[in-house]
């Protein structure tokens, strides 16, 4: 199996300078390899550092030590020592990150919000918009909303727009932070289907899934985490 993303000796603490310099250890010496077509579920109690690890795999958090090796366009890049422009490129083409929160851009219509990641890497506009419409339909966003900016949508609708945006590019690596939190059963099933399809095309997936039904449907392997250490 081809390894698509790997963490080596990853350690993370937070030093809170605004709170008297308190040091919070989050995880220490984490090693994790995820291959093509595999889905690893980060598992452990609240506060065990699951989200911090996931964010570190996206270079959203800066670990204190270790490497995050990503297979990117035929080579291997350490995300933590790469230049900012390289990380931007890797995020555009190789690693997708889907959380339950949409960062709303003022005035940009829903269809454009969904299509943007694919258009920005030069994908064919006609195919991209067709794919965006399919995703929005599958996620039950009514067509009358597609031309509106999602700022005024309900939380659940914004969440589903964000999922559509996360799946518009066939990223080789997908990081999923509770993508199904608070979705209804039908939409939860759609997200399960989308994740399965991503696995079938060979995506390496690391996720946090609190919902047992989702977890059981897609997880190949659990990565156990405990508070304060790996």
């Amino acid at each position: 199996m081809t390894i698509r993303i790997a963490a080596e000796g990853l350690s993370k603490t937070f030093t809170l300078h605004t709170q008297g310099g308190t040091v919070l250890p989050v995880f220490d010496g984490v090693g994790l390899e995820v291959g093509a077509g595999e889905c690893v579920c980060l598992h452990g109690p609240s506060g065990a550092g699951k989200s911090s690890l996931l964010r570190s795999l996206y270079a959203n958090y800066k670990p204190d030590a270790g490497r995050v090796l990503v297979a990117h366009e035929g080579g291997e890049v350490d995300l933590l020592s790469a230049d900012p422009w390289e990380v931007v490129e890797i995020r555009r083409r190789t690693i997708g990150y889907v959380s339950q929160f949409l960062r709303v851009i003022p005035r940009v219509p829903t269809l454009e919000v969904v299509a943007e990641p694919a258009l920005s890497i030069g994908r064919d506009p006609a195919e991209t918009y067709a794919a965006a419409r399919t995703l929005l339909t599958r996620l039950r966003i009514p067509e009358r909303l597609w031309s509106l900016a999602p700022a005024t949508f309900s939380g659940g609708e914004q969440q589903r727009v964000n999922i559509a945006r996360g799946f518009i590019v066939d990223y080789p690596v997908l990081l999923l932070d509770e993508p199904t939190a608070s979705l209804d059963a039908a939409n939860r099933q759609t997200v399960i289907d989308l994740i399965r399809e991503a696995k079938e095309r060979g995506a390496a997936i690391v996720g946090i899934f609190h919902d047992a039904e989702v977890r059981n449907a897609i997880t190949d392997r659990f990565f156990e985490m405990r508070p304060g250490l790996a």
Partner: protein
Amino acid sequence: MSAREPILDVRNVDKRYGETVACEDVSFTLRRGEVLGIVGESGSGKTTLLRCLAGRLAPDSGEILVDIPGLGRSDIVAMDEARREQALPLALSLVHQNPRDGIRLDISAGGNISEPLMGQGRRHYGDLRSVALHWLKRVEIAPGRIDSLARTFSGGMQQRLQIARCLVTHPQLVLMDEPTGGLDVSVQARLLDLLRGLVRELGIAAVVVTHDLAVVRLLADRLMVMQRGRVIEEGLTDQVLDDPHHPYTQLLASSVLQA
């Protein structure tokens, strides 16, 4: 991965006003299509740095290498003033916080847009007018206002006009000083969205100085945090804002009021 070419290379720039340090040992590289945000409180040196980059202020030491069309990479600090004034507008534009500093109030909107082109030797009236119409549309000003004096525009319209005037020459680098400062929140959102679209579509590199973290989050790929003239933290924008390491950056990131 092929690296995009650097368009701006800043090396060890120092600037003092008497005993006061405005910029100390500032270095960074900006590549084509990259947007860099610079944040910091008043007096942190961010505006001084921007004025040095724009060639409006001479640093005490250091190099500022700009890729200038026809000249190649040139140190604008070492260049003589006359040459700098002639060459720099080919490479970069400066968007002022106050649009009145960047447009001419007593000429028409169309005149404001075509003037920089005339400065580059374009004279054909019909061409200039059609370019002006095109840019008015791009910045969402009604074409019917082309002959109105800039003075008669609202603050938000004047700011959009200034942006058109700055982009009409297709600079590869745009420097912006608090581009949304002093505007109503609703006008800010529109301007931000417009800037974001233009920057991406035209593939220009930009340096945006602001104290508004929401502005950098929306516009900038990278972020530099300045305090007392020094760069104290830098990295990807989301990284610096979501996992700040320096005490001052932590204070800044935790002080944002949630709307």
